[in-house]
């Protein structure tokens, strides 16, 4: 008799813990062929709020950590992901080789971003030669809590939008791909075992059209990445809601996740702080 396997319950990832949706709701996730795979949690407005609270709570510690430390943790995420290559490839489905390539590209992307943690300041900062006896220095700082609507690409796309947000010291609330949310929750297991402080990344699964506007309107969210929104009306509504507290918005655009990511995803959620001090003796 073959052994009956133990299946995983897919939950949310909030504040470093894996709660079910407080609403008790779930929705079925199917494979490309339409077969039932698992039930994913369908996050509620309350879950979204809890996630923002967790992200806000994690912000001082994460943004105050040394860039070297943040870089090491992101690298650690890459290490943990590498160790689960087969599991992720399996979960992504489709052709085995193509799936493995996706996982490898994701690991490499994490390594790429990990290295940015202690370099972005040198690239984006400036010593400003003001016309007077003043020391004047501009440095980039994280914007705060960023809500990220992840693209459909369940792993490489997801990591390609989350890594640039957190490597600079932001914390985030992510709405995972609605049709393919399972890799996001498995990624949460990787994050939870990589010394990433709880609350730095919070992952919600559920309906994008339901969750995105709540996050867009949330007054304690500072930035909004709409990359995963394909419905123009929803994107418009979210950007309008975001205007209420002047969130920094990254508008949806067609992305090639295989291309060189550039620095734009990091800089969109960075502020520039300029400090003056008189020179004297």
């Amino acid at each position: 008799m073959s052994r009956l396997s133990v299946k995983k319950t897919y939950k949310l990832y909030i504040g470093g813990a894996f709660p079910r949706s407080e609403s008790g709701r779930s929705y079925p996730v199917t494979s490309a062929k339409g077969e039932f795979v698992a039930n994913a949690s369908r996050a509620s407005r309350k879950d979204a709020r809890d996630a923002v609270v967790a992200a806000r709570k994690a912000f001082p510690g994460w943004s105050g950590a040394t860039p070297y430390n943040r870089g090491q943790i992101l690298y650690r995420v890459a290490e943990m992901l590498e160790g689960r290559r087969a599991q992720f490839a399996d979960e992504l489905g489709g052709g085995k080789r193509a799936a493995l390539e996706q996982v490898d590209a994701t690991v490499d992307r994490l390594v790429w971003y990990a290295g940015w943690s202690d370099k972005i300041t040198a690239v984006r900062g400036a010593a400003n030669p003001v016309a007077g006896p003043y020391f004047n220095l501009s440095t980039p700082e994280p914007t705060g809590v960023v809500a990220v609507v992840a693209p459909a690409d369940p792993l490489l796309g997801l990591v390609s939008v989350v890594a640039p947000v957190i490597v600079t010291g932001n914390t985030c609330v992510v709405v995972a791909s609605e049709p393919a949310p399972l890799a996001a929750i498995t990624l949460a297991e990787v994050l939870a075992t990589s010394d990433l402080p709880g609350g730095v990344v919070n992952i919600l699964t559920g309906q994008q059209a339901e969750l995105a506007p709540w996050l867009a309107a949330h007054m304690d969210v500072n930035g909004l990445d709409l990359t995963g929104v394909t419905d123009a009306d929803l994107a418009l509504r979210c950007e309008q809601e975001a205007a209420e507290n002047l969130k920094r918005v990254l508008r949806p655009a067609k992305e090639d996740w295989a291309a060189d990511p550039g620095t734009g995803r990091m800089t969109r959620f960075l502020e520039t702080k300029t400090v003056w001090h008189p020179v004297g003796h």
Partner: protein
Amino acid sequence: MFEYAPAPESRDVVDLRSSYGLFINGEFVEGSGPSFKTVNPATEETLAEVATASSDDVDRAVQAARKAFGAWSALPGSERAKYLFRIARLIQERARELAVLESLDNGKPIRESRDVDLPLVAAHFFYYAGWADKLAYAGFGTKPLGVAGQVIPWNFPLLMLAWKIAPALACGNTVVLKPAETTPLTALLFADICRQADLPPGVVNIVTGAGETGAAVVAHPDVNKVAFTGSTEVGRIIARAVAGTNKKLTLELGGKAANIVFDDAAVDQAVEGIVNGIFFNQGHVCCAGSRLLVQESIQEELLAALKRRLGTLRLGDPLDKNTDIGAINSAEQLAKIRRLSDLGESEGAERWSPACELPGRGFWFPPTLFTGVAQSHSIAREEIFGPVLSVLTFRTPAEAVEKANNTPYGLSAGVWTEKGSRILWMADRLRAGVVWANTFNKFDPTSPFGGYKESGYGREGGLHGLEAYLDV
């Protein structure tokens, strides 16, 4: 206090016309909206009639800018640079005329328009002129956006024009700029400078009017970039208006900056910094240090010194070279300052002003400070945009940070202490785009300026200021 004989700057240097049109495609043209009067806020005399641009006029201006964009953006950067250098020089040549006109239309003391605004305006054009042929080294590419729609406020009319137009042109964009309704005159004189510089027609277009004209500029479908400086309230409306478009947006909005004084600060310098922080330009400054956070142990000493100093400020004729505090820019703004100050009293704070005689005509408000202010008071939360200082206290550096950051704004902050490590510790934690340590209200074209949170986004000035005008 010494008696001073009046030392008025002559108005003769300014040749005011009775009416002004719009500047579109290199020509002054009639506006199709009803004209409006711009007044001298120090006397309430009408200075000139100014045209209102209707949405059709705005459309003509945008078309002119679009038409000019091809050739302007195709010019070698070195040629664009020379136009901007020319403009910088013309501004220097006509600096006195521009300064007097600015003080007449805005109400700010001539000492400030002459010694702060105008030198910074010329420096800004000079600075960005030099970037025009060096964009490839800045890291944002070299591709301009197209037509920039720019809406500016009344507190630094010509300086805000410079902050908007200089980087836009250097990067190869063309512009449609709307100056504030109450201070259009220096922008219109700048149009004349563009003509003297032989700037190609349509590269700079200036449309005057009120909010509706600004809204038409922002909403125009052929505008690629919107830049706005003004209130957070209007900033929100603009952010909503450009949502769902491809327009690039930068916003420089309101503030409620904390100016934090520790017990080891050099008191005399701190007092000067506090005065400069909130009474410079009548407090009509988005980055004004409108919340004084003073360490409890030196509160009495500092306030006594501050009050002594406020007693020496001279309020009156903006054109008098002795004047420290000029006129409030408009009746509307004066009403707002009065309303919020009255609210300060009714909510329980204690109001104080030095003995100060206000002129009989014009819009005036005495330098005012409130003590006993709680964080929940309206005067500790809302931007007053006037010569009104709210004084709060703190005990520890952590409490100072907590209180300073307890605002939806994040434009600027000040720190006064002789301890270097504390300055850096504070600067790290203050959520503000500009931190002035042992100084305040310093500006320079090489230094990026702009806010965190609801103070807006994007930076103006410096290398960072180029990003707003390039297709990154």
